[in-house]
């Protein structure tokens, strides 16, 4: 009495083209978005698809890229760091604060040798990262809240140091790396590429990288497997802060000044780059490859909107809508994959 199975009742067998696509939608979706944006902007503006403009885009995303490298680690563990921009700003201002400024700059700063100023900047972002790590792992504050507080603390440090003024000078090394070139390439692009490369290698080929994915994939299971989950979380918070700090120091040279609120837009941009690229906000899925895709989507979008002739206020809205769309795809892809 073999039962007949009516059609349409069977679950789609795994391994079919549908589930293959579903499993890779998180990678495919940002790629399609990117190609779509490139096609649209190329059609709308003759100045968009040029080698020069590619250089522009690369430069424009470099600082975001350095921040996003660290943030990728954090988001892969299903945590978040909202303090990246504030930490970047703080580290940038610290390095300027310890550098001799022109006489017209009215800041009670403490000039130190360049290497020491850089060390101070690094120490500052490291310390803020440790504070984040301590709050999240030892005290147990959700990273969303902890880093929200750190956002404010970072802004506070900036305000205290520059008191509404603007500093300009940074140590020569920072100046070179932030605004100089090596051959035809801007140093900042090279640095960003290095960060992304190292980030990718660490995440893909090291034990720590595997732990980052496993902690994000199932924190409890990682704990039961004997992974020191708190140590991994602390490490990613510190990595994120240090990446942000370095981005901030180079950013001061890139922009040519250090001032309050200089990096505010980088918070949204870096989170967007990671998530739009397809790294799951729920942790455990994605990586630097996705972040690179996300950076290009963001870079092309920001740059391309400047090449076409539309209301500049409308651009803000368009940017928001496209980011929203990418986020929807991210969450939807996650669900599809779980069903596949």
């Amino acid at each position, binding site marked *: 009495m073999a*039962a007949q199975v009516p059609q349409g009742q069977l679950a789609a067998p795994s391994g079919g083209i549908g589930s293959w696509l579903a499993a890779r939608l998180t990678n495919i979706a940002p790629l399609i978005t990117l190609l779509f944006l490139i096609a649209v902007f190329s059609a709308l503006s003759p100045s968009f698809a040029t080698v020069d403009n590619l250089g522009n885009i690369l430069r424009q995303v470099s600082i975001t890229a350095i921040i996003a490298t660290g943030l990728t680690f954090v988001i892969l563990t299903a945590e978040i760091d909202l303090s990246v921009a504030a930490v970047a700003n703080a580290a940038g201002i610290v390095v300027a604060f310890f550098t001799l400024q022109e006489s017209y700059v009215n800041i009670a700063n403490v000039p130190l040798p360049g290497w020491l100023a850089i060390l101070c900047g690094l120490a500052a972002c490291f310390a803020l990262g440790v504070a984040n790590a301590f709050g999240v792992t030892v005290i147990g504050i959700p990273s969303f809240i902890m880093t929200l507080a750190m956002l404010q603390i970072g802004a506070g440090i900036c305000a205290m140091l520059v008191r509404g003024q603007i500093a300009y000078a940074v140590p020569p090394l920072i100046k070179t790396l932030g605004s100089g070139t090596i051959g035809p390439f801007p140093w900042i692009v090279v640095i960003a590429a290095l960060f992304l490369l190292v980030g990718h290698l660490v995440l893909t080929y*090291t034990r720590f990288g595997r732990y980052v994915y496993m902690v994000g994939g199932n924190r*409890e299971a990682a704990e039961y497997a004997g992974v020191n989950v708190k140590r991994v979380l602390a490490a990613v918070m510190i990595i994120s802060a240090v990446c942000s700090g370095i981005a901030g120091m180079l950013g001061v040279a890139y922009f040519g000044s250090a001032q309050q609120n200089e990096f505010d837009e980088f918070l949204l941009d870096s989170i967007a780059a990671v998530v739009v690229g397809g790294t799951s906000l729920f942790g455990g899925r994605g990586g630097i490859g996705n972040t690179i895709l996300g950076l290009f989507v963001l870079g092309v979008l920001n740059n391309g909107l400047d090449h076409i002739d539309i209301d500049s206020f409308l651009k803000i809205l368009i940017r928001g809508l496209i980011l929203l769309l990418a986020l929807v795809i991210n969450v939807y892809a996650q669900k599809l994959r779980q069903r596949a």
Partner: protein
Amino acid sequence: MVEKPAGGNGRPILEMSGIGKSFGGVTALSGVDFTLREGEVHGLIGENGAGKSTLMKIVAGVHGTYDGEMRIDGRPVRFRSARDALAAGIGMVHQELSIVPSLSVAENVFLGHQLTNGAGIVRWRAMAKEAKVHLARLGIDIDPGAEAGRLPLGLQQLVELGRVLFSGARIIILDEPTSALSPPEIERLFTVLRRLKAEGTSFIFISHFLEDVLAVSDRVTVFRNSRRIATANAAEVDKHWLIERMIGRGHQELEEALEGEVRLATPEAAPVVLEAEGLVRKGAFADVSLQVRAGEVLGLYGFMGSGQLEVAKTLMGKLVPEAGSIRIDGRPVRLSSTAQAKQAGIALVPESRRSMLFADEPVYKNISISILERIGKLLLDPAEERKIAQGHVDRLRIRPYSVEPPLRALSGGNQQKVALARWLTHLPKVLVLAEPTRGMDVGAKDDVVHIVRSLKAEGVGIVVASAEPETVMALADRIVVMRKGTITREFRNETVSKDRLLAAA
């Protein structure tokens, strides 16, 4: 097919005939006839995968396509959704309760159909009052304002039963309702069932606990291999009769554990590997002291919620005790994280699959996660990981034989073996198994028994924490019984039976 004369006087309320169902070519049900009478408790037993869940999912409207016919009150029906089934008066109380722990008892009883006035404002007071009256009808007296999640599990279950009744169900499917309950709670549930039955409500009672089935059912139906094997009046059969039909083959080990007595042989000569003294954790257990020798299996038995699982987690460093000490090989260790416990040579396979496995990751990564630091100090070596994992997959007969598919593609029993395999490359000194056979079929249980025996032979000290007496009896050399967080008895070098274990718990 054995057909004992059927008792019960009610008219048939649910009739199913010639029911067949298959999934992708695998037959789950074949030619099943089943009748439920009004005011009857009908026990449904069978091993995992025997077909009882599938049949119940058809009744509850989860599976809309199947062969055969289903009639309610003599009228043919075919449910397309759980909502259809509910509308026809069929409700289900799942093993994993679906009450909302953060809501009050009253809100849970009225979940989905809150009382509101014309303006859509919730009538809290009326709801509380009605909920109380309603639950009183079940013979239970609970404060309707109490937070449901804080009630003992037995009461939570009755609240859920109350909700199902309130939504108008006349036929209620109870899925493993007694597995988490203590004997007094079970008795209270049965009292409620008998009362409701007298009022005309019919129950289908699915359970692995044969005594419970026999105690409360009017009739019992046995499933095996997708077929209904027998239906009998509960009063006219006994456990042996049921087991014979359920298993259908001589299965000595299980039957011994189920039925007879097990002689505990406790090795005394081997050195003590784990020694816990005076462990205290508020709200979970108090003054727990244990010793495990190399090559010994210590059974930690108690009803669900007696504290044995918490003790297991404490040994792994997942929970931190407020007092007490733990020594490994005689050296005191401080276990404030699982990483420290692992370092000290302790391993734990937790009781829930969700908390031990990475569903999206391939099998080999699930196995290698605990030994990465031994494979490479800093860098990964995926080739070595795969090789080691493949060895375990072959030895433990994990299916499919590949280490590449994501874990979610494996069946539950195979997933559990993967979780065990994680600790088999570099053997821990102490292996703690929490509910190692929960939800497994007999074949997989046998595999676990064999794995544990081979680990024993290698000198690993093993702790088996479980609320299932069969599991503990099948595996342990020595059994410690816990009740409400304290150790009440120890069995060593003597014969134990399920009765004696239950009596001590």
